[in-house]
């Protein structure tokens, strides 16, 4: 493993977004992973529609909540093509699913893998390197007050409640950490990102990890 790696340095991570008062973190996490996987494949990096996933993923609850794994399962089963964000923009509330014709351009997934990597965070880092940013679920109760630095306390594993996207890791200092993109806007955390200590399953970051293939 390299001692530092961040997919942002390869220009394959879209900007931090803001879910506003919508509990659609699960959709932001999954769509972020797809955007990056698509760009890593050599295609253009562009914002895809989070609202499409919120409205159409029938095995979730839109802005009232959902699961990253359920969303990936739906995307894989239906082979729905995610359209550009500009074509189906974010409204911060659940709406009726808008269908597009089969000829409409968009991105569908080829598959995904979801595993529990607790006690195997080095393996998790290898998966991040091989496949792209990872959609994970964390316990983010203490993140309400986070301003910056490396999160090492005040959250637990086994109580996951918030979906985010890991874009990289840094092991150059005394405390190695994951680089985590959130969906609470750029004024939260460090320009919208949080850092979580690696190697101890802090916040349950390794409990529910998904990689997506496009």
């Amino acid at each position, binding site marked *: 493993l390299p001692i530092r790696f961040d997919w942002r340095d390869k220009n394959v991570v879209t900007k931090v977004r803001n879910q506003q008062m919508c509990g659609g973190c699960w959709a932001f996490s999954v769509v972020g992973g797809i955007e990056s996987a698509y760009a890593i494949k050599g295609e253009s990096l562009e914002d895809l529609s989070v609202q499409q996933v919120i409205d159409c993923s029938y095995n979730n609850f839109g802005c009232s909540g959902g699961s990253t*794994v359920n969303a990936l399962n739906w995307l*894989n089963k239906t082979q729905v093509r995610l359209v550009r964000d500009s074509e189906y923009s974010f409204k911060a509330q659940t709406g009726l699913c808008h269908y597009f014709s089969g000829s409409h351009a968009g991105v569908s997934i080829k598959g995904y893998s979801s595993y529990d990597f607790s006690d195997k965070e080095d393996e998790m880092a290898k998966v991040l390197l091989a496949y792209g940013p990872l959609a994970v679920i964390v316990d983010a109760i203490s993140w309400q007050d986070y301003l910056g630095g490396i999160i090492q306390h005040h959250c637990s594993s086994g109580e996951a409640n918030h979906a985010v996207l890991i874009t990289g890791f840094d092991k150059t200092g005394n405390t190695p950490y994951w680089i985590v993109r959130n969906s609470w806007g750029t004024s939260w955390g460090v320009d919208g990102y949080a850092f979580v200590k690696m190697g101890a399953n802090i916040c349950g970051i390794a409990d529910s990890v998904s990689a997506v293939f496009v």
Partner: protein
Amino acid sequence: DSPERSEKRSAAFRESLKRHRYLNSFSSRANTSAIYGINQFSHLFPEEFRAIYLRSKPSQLPLYHKELKMPATHMP
């Protein structure tokens, strides 16, 4: 805001300040530790914050083993 609503927000903010002191009490040991303080969520009680923003549900997933080939699972 109505006076009641305004008082509720003030109470949530005061509680946030107390919470920040507690959370930061762990930070002094290492300068890389997280810092907690006032941000756009400080006017919310933790229950309100949780109800609005923490709406993801975890799934029970299999433990990862080195031998597993990632793309082999869940392929269409």
